[in-house]
């Protein structure tokens, strides 16, 4: 698009455009390039601002150019652009669809990106853990509802749960390493090719600070309410991640297994026989875990209710997005119900726990391919943008 006269060959990818249209960007072609969106956006850099240029690249099916674009990750879906768009082209939804496409495009292995990216295949994605768990439980002879006091370990032993999820987490990590490498190499080309990498750590730390503070969200106009909801969901997840590791710590370091008995002969030796200490360790752990779950529950409900609210503009969140929001909500609801039913000593707690583990599996195993992958891609892209002096925060 430069001033010099040379021929530029554009290779439109029609399938790519159709894919975007199918994932919520259905009015994409209405855009007439007025650039209202770039003006009302408070997150865009001044040079080559977004989302106007992304709109025309998307219309033209410039998949390759868009895969190098860090800007789609600077966008936080505030939707000021969508609110003011004179054509109802909904740039916010277009950028969201582009992010979805980027996750699928960088996914490793690629078929997983397709599986999780298609809402129609959600049922298959959920069937995988169901079948897997059933096979494991039946080969171990566990496929029944245990008698007596409800203790999940009797139904789905922890020495089954942990190897499954440790394996899954390792695979997720490998997948992310491959994907992020691919993603970084895509980003790191002209016009923003990095000359030096010395700024990596400061940029990364700055990015994390911003994420915790939700600083970019704070600049949103039309979609302000989302900030609190997103913050609760994020903190809920972080809390539950810590809780999980906390439990792993108790189990393998203290040899203290759920349901964490505080009877004198069963408390870990590290407490030096002090029942009070054990009770405190137990209480702190339980309070922390439950508060985290509540944060996630409240945040999840807020996410959904915000979407239903009339905010003066339409945002057709793609079904991709909805599937994910619903699964998070199911995850936390089954989790809380499992706990409540267990405490009520009702055997129905077992199938509920099973369902909960299925959703946990979905969230963790499919992390690199689901919407949740944005936490890795966004963090990477913002860090990169800061290094490339493209981020305006």
């Amino acid at each position: 698009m430069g001033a010099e006269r040379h021929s530029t060959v554009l290779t439109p990818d029609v399938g790519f455009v159709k894919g975007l249209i199918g994932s919520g960007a259905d009015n994409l072609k209405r855009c007439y390039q007025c650039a209202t969106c770039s003006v009302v956006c408070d997150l865009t850099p001044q040079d080559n601002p977004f989302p106007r240029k992304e709109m025309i690249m998307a219309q033209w099916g410039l998949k390759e150019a868009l895969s190098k674009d860090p800007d789609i990750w600077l966008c936080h879906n505030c939707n000021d652009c969508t609110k003011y768009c004179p054509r109802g082209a909904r740039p916010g939804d277009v950028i969201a669809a582009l992010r979805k496409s980027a996750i699928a495009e960088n996914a490793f292995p690629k078929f997983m990106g397709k599986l999780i990216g298609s809402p129609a295949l959600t049922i298959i994605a959920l069937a995988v853990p169901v079948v897997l768990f059933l096979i494991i439980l039946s080969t171990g002879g566990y496929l029944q509802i245990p008698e007596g006091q409800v203790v999940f370990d009797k139904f789905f032993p922890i020495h089954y749960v942990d190897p499954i999820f440790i394996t899954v987490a390792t695979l997720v990590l490998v997948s992310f390493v491959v994907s992020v490498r691919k993603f970084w190499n895509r980003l790191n080309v002209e016009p923003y090719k990095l000359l030096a990498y010395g700024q990596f750590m400061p940029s990364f730390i700055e990015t994390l600070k911003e994420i915790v503070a939700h600083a970019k969200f704070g600049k949103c106009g039309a979609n302000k309410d989302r900030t609190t909801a997103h913050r609760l969901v994020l903190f809920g997840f972080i809390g539950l991640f810590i809780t999980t590791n906390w439990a792993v710590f108790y189990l393998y370091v203290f040899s203290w297994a759920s349901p964490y008995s505080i009877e004198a002969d069963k408390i870990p030796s590290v407490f030096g026989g002090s029942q009070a200490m054990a009770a405190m360790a137990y209480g702190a752990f339980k309070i922390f875990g439950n508060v985290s779950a509540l944060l996630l529950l409240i945040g999840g409900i807020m996410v959904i209710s915000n979407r239903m609210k009339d905010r003066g503009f339409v945002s057709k969140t793609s079904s991709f997005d909805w599937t994910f929001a619903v699964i998070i909500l199911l995850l936390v609801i089954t989790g809380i119900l499992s706990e409540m039913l267990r405490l009520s000593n009702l055997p129905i707690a077992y199938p509920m726990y099973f369902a909960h583990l299925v959703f946990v599996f979905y969230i963790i195993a499919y992390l690199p391919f689901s919407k949740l992958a944005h936490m890795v891609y966004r963090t990477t892209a913002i860090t990169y943008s800061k290094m490339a002096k493209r981020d305006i925060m």
Partner: protein
Amino acid sequence: MSDGKSILVIGGGISGVTTAIEAAEAGYDTYIVEKNPYLGGRVAQLNKYFPKLCPPYCGLEINFRRIRQNPKIRFYTLAEVESVSGSEGNFNVSIKQNPRMVNNKCTACSKCVEACPVERPNSFNFGMDKTKAIYLPHDMSFPMKYVIDPSVCPGTSCAKCVGACTYNAIDLSMKAESVKINVGSIVYATGWNPYDATKMENLGFGKVKNVITNVMMERLAAINGPTKGVIQRPSDQKQPKNVAFVQCAGSRDENHLKHCSGICCMATLKQATYLRESDSASTAFMYYIDLRTPGKYEDFLKKVSSDENVKLIKGKVAKIEEDPETMDPILIVEDILGGKKIRHQVDMVVLATGMEPSAKATGAGIKLDSDGFALTEGQMAGVYSSGVAKSPNDVTTSLQDATAAALKGIQSLVSAGRK
């Protein structure tokens, strides 16, 4: 009164006046119903026409003379159509004649104005100056009669004007009357209103002082305007050096007017010449999405843009802020071809607000499209439209359309007469 042999023209702007005159000169009785106290409509408020840059008063004067000389044209000012019933060849129309409070004895001597103690914002000049409660709408008003604004006049308790008038021309007891006429066909020439710029909160009109609209710019540049033709900015009456014109302010925007108003690009280019002629050191910046100067108007674009102090920048202004020190407006816009989001501080901003069809608000007895313009197909027999009532047109196109509408009105009379 006329037994279905006349044509009613609703709206006395340039389209309605043209339809009525053309039909009358072809030998048919016509009525014009105009809600303002004068004929001429929006054209009377223009400083110059594009692309010839001649004053509209000139053409209006010729039309007014044609009306005066032709007994077949009857017109009501300060009047509104209340109801229409019947069918082609036999429409019963009820017209509400609002009181002018001034009768035909008025010679426009202006003694009443000197006596009147009450002021009102001058709607003809978009509130940029004031008139008394009794006023002449503009220098060349037709009919050349004063009028009292009943919303501000205290009435008989004051009556200072009545005492000042030596012709016995003021009658404060006038009341609204209902007039019934029978006509054979009806032409809606209801025209347009400038889109209300306050509705675009991001463009700051009404908050950022030195943001005005294009119709205000016409009045500022007009010799009979509030500043006697001196282009001044509102905050400090300074003559602006750098003026930005913001195109599509409300038009081509589904949050405001979905349609392209068609004339704003040409109007802005024209107004750029007002600025450039007023001050050789001035610069006009025109921010646009697309330059829509179709057909022969391309020449005008070339002519105006050949001036290096007329700068055309692709990008829609979507935010306007105010510099609190200088009161200068600051535009925020993406210079699309330059690839940069910029902040541009200027002395004054002119919003090229679009044309909102008036028929939308009046709920007239004519079928409208989703934008509020009269549909050309599917109307009741004997009902037609012309000018901007039908589509956002410039004056030339409106005149052609108005002449065509006159012929349609006549054909309707003739065919209904045969039945």
